[in-house]
């Protein structure tokens, strides 16, 4: 059907309208991406928020009149409190361990590797892209009752029976998570170290700072954004990790994700699962916000 002249004019007017507003054109281009992410993330999470005020009455049946019971339970039941605290401390320790271990490596690549920097970077990021499940699983193979460590030590005659404290406890979860997330800590720290202007270091040396003082007065404060990014990128996802506690945590190492999954699965109490999910996300967001804020302030005062 050919367009009549009026339609053509409206069409070209519309084109002109969009053409003259680059912001609008940009958003038009961005809209499919935004729509998909919105549909797949915002709607489900908002749905979860609504669900958290309902009450489960049967299979897929809910009392929708609105209640705060799920939140009251999430905050008061001992089991949840234990799981929240355990998840937070496991992630906190994991974050600390990964960042402390990654810093010297990032420092080495940024300041001591002259050629082949990219080879090092690829070498340390490669494991990140391999299966998370397999990286966690390899620790089950290593720490298990008949695993590599136990059978290795036994065949060397160093122990007579398997050590049973290696797996199925929070320590095993921390060890496994630290390894699985190690690669995530290196990059942001490396990037911020790499960006440091080398003439600042020369200036500090010329003005009489020892390398030690120079490290604490210049390098560390300037690397802080990278360190903070690494902390955030590791702490947030590990609080909600499901695979690691399920594989190596045992019942003593269960974390908050296990109870969320239980409520949506066999426990079939979706509103409770939703309330626990949102509560944990909120707690994590507040903790991370406070952490970043205070770290920034501390470093600001020093500089």
């Amino acid at each position, binding site marked *: 059907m050919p367009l009549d002249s009026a339609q053509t004019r409206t069409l070209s007017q519309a084109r002109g309208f969009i053409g003259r507003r680059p912001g609008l054109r940009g958003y038009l281009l961005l809209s499919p991406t935004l729509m998909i992410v919105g549909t*797949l993330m915002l709607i*489900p999470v908002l749905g979860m928020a609504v669900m958290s005020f309902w009450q489960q009455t049967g299979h897929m049946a809910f009392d929708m009149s609105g209640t705060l019971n799920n939140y009251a339970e999430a905050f008061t039941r001992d089991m949840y409190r234990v799981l929240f605290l355990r998840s937070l401390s496991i992630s906190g320790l994991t974050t600390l361990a990964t960042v402390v271990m990654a810093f010297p490596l990032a420092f*080495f690549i940024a300041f*001591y590797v002259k050629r082949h920097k990219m080879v090092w*970077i690829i070498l340390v990021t490669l494991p990140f892209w391999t299966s998370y499940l397999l990286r966690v699983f390899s620790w089950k193979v290593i720490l298990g009752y008949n695993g590599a460590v136990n059978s290795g030590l036994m065949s060397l005659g160093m122990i007579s029976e398997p050590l049973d404290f290696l797996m199925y406890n929070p320590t095993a979860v921390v060890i496994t998570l630290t390894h699985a997330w190690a690669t995530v800590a290196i990059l942001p720290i490396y990037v911020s170290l790499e960006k440091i202007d080398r003439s600042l270091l020369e200036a500090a040396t010329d003005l009489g700072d020892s390398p030690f003082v120079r490290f604490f007065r210049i390098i560390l404060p300037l690397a802080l954004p990278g360190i903070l990014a690494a902390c955030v990128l590791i702490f947030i*996802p590990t609080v909600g990790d499901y695979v690691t506690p399920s594989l190596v945590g045992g019942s003593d190492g269960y974390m908050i994700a296990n109870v969320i999954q239980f409520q949506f699965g066999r426990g079939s109490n979706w509103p409770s699962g939703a309330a626990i999910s949102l509560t*944990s996300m909120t707690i994590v967001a507040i903790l991370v916000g406070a952490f970043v804020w205070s770290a920034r302030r501390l470093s600001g005062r020093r500089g």
Partner: protein
Amino acid sequence: MKQGTRLAARILGAYAVIYVAYLYVPVLFLPLFSFNDSIYISFPLRGWTFKWYESMLANDALHRALVNSLKVGLTTAFISTVLGILGAKAVTRYRLPGQKPVVAMIMLPLVVPEIILAMALLMVILRAGGSLGLVSIAAGHILLCVPFAMVVLMSRFEGFDRSLEEASHDLGENGWWTFWRVTFPNVLPGIVASLLLTFTISFDEFIMAFFLGSTEPTLPVFMWNQLRFPKLLPGVLALGACILIASVLVVLAAEWFRRRNTSDSQSGDVIIG
């Protein structure tokens, strides 16, 4: 002073070697035991065998899982890369009001625990009367992969000279042809890298596949289900070893494409997982 620096370099260098060993050695236990002629995963090793690989090749359920993984992976890679191209072009070529929060929202799935995203999706799909299967897994994977595609492609779009596009416009090409004849060939390595990376992420992803997949297991879910049977463990190791090698090859290829013809292969465009 000089000597002190050299000592520091040596200590840090030694540390770096140990650290890389720490990254890789645990994972190497999987291929190691996959060649061990015993159903027990323990030392001492009993001798070489390929039988776990042979039994893996003969397993029909595994073939089905592999096909599922490939279907989901290819769909995810294609759709998230297309979305990544559109998004990356929009944020690098236009000044969008409110760009920061919008981009932050797209990147959000990187930090929200997957289990929460998976449960929220599960809840909405079931409430809306939808069914679980490969489509819902792919939906979950697209959500996780779009941020990665965006990051890879944004650095590629930023990396090439905008005046090429302007020149094409000035010479009378319209937007569509400018895209195909100027923009596309220039960002092509980024597109290939994005396809490869998003495919790997989808191929290895477990949480979404496990909870949104119902009776359609992908390879990681198939592996997880096998873990319950100690007798099947060596087979899982063999499969795991194959998956590891495949991922490494795909990622190395992606890296190679991503860095091709970029003058700015500096630290700035490293992907931060």
